[in-house]
């Protein structure tokens, strides 16, 4: 089985988001980078499928040169083909991202055969656009489902589960298809030391891509005003328990 996974490099914002002075970007100077937990799980799922059924896991990212780091992270847990659509640091619209990914997939499929399954994260951690996977699927005329937390693969189809109103709904899709997954579909492994070493040396196929303007024009970013400012300290250690119990009574939680 040939599986392609699309991942996005995002800043690991911590307890507080700091913006650049022009309020158009997150100030990332103090921050590390990662991929979303959804996408980490997508990589893990692809690796498990290929471990069971044979095949190749290819991981693709569109991002600045530094995004090679995220490809190598994916390689350290088992991806063996790495594709980097190299852009400048500008932010891409989801429409343009999907277009560039589709062009790359068409090119890659000519080179090394069709992908049976293309995996996405349910949404990118930073922009949360909820759509790149669906757009790619439409352009390739393949069926697609989002928000998947369990995937069973057979020779010709996949059965996908998604949570809905306190239960699970099931979808059957014929291969080739596109699936966007959520964290919880699996528990990703930690990279092994040999895995890391291998990833370091792995070749990356680089394809330059031109940034395109989107339809949504950013004016500014802002950190929302939070309703809570500073907690009232009820006390230290177990001495605070009577005060807490009083609150629980007041809120009707303890009768």
């Amino acid at each position, binding site marked *: 089985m040939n599986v392609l996974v699309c991942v996005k490099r995002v800043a690991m*914002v911590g*307890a*507080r*988001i700091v913006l650049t002075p022009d309020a158009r970007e997150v100030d990332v100077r103090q921050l590390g980078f990662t991929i*979303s937990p959804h996408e980490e799980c997508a990589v893990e799922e692809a690796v498990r499928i290929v471990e069971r059924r044979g095949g190749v896991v290819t991981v693709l990212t569109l991002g600045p040169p530094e995004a090679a780091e995220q490809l190598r992270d994916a390689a350290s847990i088992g991806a063996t083909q790495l594709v980097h659509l190299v852009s400048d640091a500008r932010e891409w*619209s*989801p429409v343009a991202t*999907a277009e560039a990914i589709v062009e790359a997939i068409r090119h890659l499929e000519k080179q090394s055969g069709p992908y049976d399954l293309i995996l996405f994260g349910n*949404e990118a*951690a*930073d922009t*949360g656009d*909820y*759509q790149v996977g*669906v*757009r790619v699927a439409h*352009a390739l005329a393949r*069926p*697609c*489902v*989002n928000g998947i937390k369990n995937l069973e693969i057979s020779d010709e189809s996949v059965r996908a589960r998604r*949570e809905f109103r306190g*239960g*699970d*709904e*099931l*979808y059957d*899709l014929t291969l080739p298809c596109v699936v966007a997954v*959520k*964290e*919880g579909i699996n*528990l990703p492994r930690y990279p092994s030391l040999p895995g890391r070493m291998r990833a370091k040396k792995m070749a990356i196929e680089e394809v330059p891509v031109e940034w395109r303007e*989107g339809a*949504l*024009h*950013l004016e*500014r*970013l*802002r*950190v*929302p005003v*939070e309703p*809570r*400012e*500073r*907690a*009232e*300290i*009820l*006390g*230290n*250690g177990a001495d*605070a*328990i009577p005060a*807490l*119990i009083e609150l629980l009574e007041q*809120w*009707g*939680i*303890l009768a």
Partner: protein
Amino acid sequence: MSNVAGVLCFVEYDDDGVADASLRALTFARSLAESSGSSLAAAVIGSISSSVLASLSLFGVNDVYQVASNGLDVYAPVGWARALGELIESSGAGALVAAGSDRGNEVMANVGASKGLPMVANCLSASWLDGSSIRLSRQRWAGSLIEDAVLEGVPALLSVASDGVLASPVQTPVATAVHEWQLQANETDASVRVVEWIGRGGGVALADARVVVGGGRGVGSEEGFAALDELAGLLGAAVGVSRAVTSAGWRPHAQQVGQTGTRISAELYLACGISGATQHLAGCRSAKHVVTINTDADAPFLSRADYAIVGDLSVIVPALVSAIQARKSS
């Protein structure tokens, strides 16, 4: 701005009536329509019950399209998107709005993909600037950051943040005209659809729990959760955890609170040994009262909680359990 077309809102419902998230979407859509003095329409796939119709008039819907189709009464994102795409055209709507739910976002992405239109997810507010552009605010980072932007082009496709807009009805219910709409479903429309739904019994569902007892890395181990489980039992609460806990394999992901976990809306969130990263806080923004227990008085959670106890949870939680038990038996 009388030349601006109306707003169409895709409405989700269940046996109890219109889904809460769709009531919020309707409120958002109405405010967009009002910004240009245009009308509000709704699209319902399947048959409209009297309780759904009552909610629609309560939320100011002038026209509702009842979409009937051969075989698409179960959820089928491609087919539902095609129905909405055709409705935009025939009703001449200038914007299509949906709840930022799994289905809402998925249907909107499909409308966007099939019609070659941009789609903006998780909006908080929007108003027409002129007949072809909208000024809007939307969530990024699951609401930890807000983007103010202008969207060019019609029809606009917008989904509404599930935790950022309050549902508010109109002062006097309007008369809602019901229009039948038929979709001739083809093979592609039904290629992806729900084939089965399986209920999951037992336990208090985290998303709906009235009280959530939270545990983070500070709980220390899988065994450390015994005291939290006991406390949750006494309070009729669900247990919620941080990603540090699910990554360590101490607890299943179904219990994770946050950006990539569950969003809770409890009366009380008692968060123990959780530092308060933005991605965790994104999951408890709708909690009414937040109390946190942490050894570190400078942990970020203390600036996002109502009350805090500074100290070791492995002492405080068992002591709280004993105090509640003593109170119950006295």
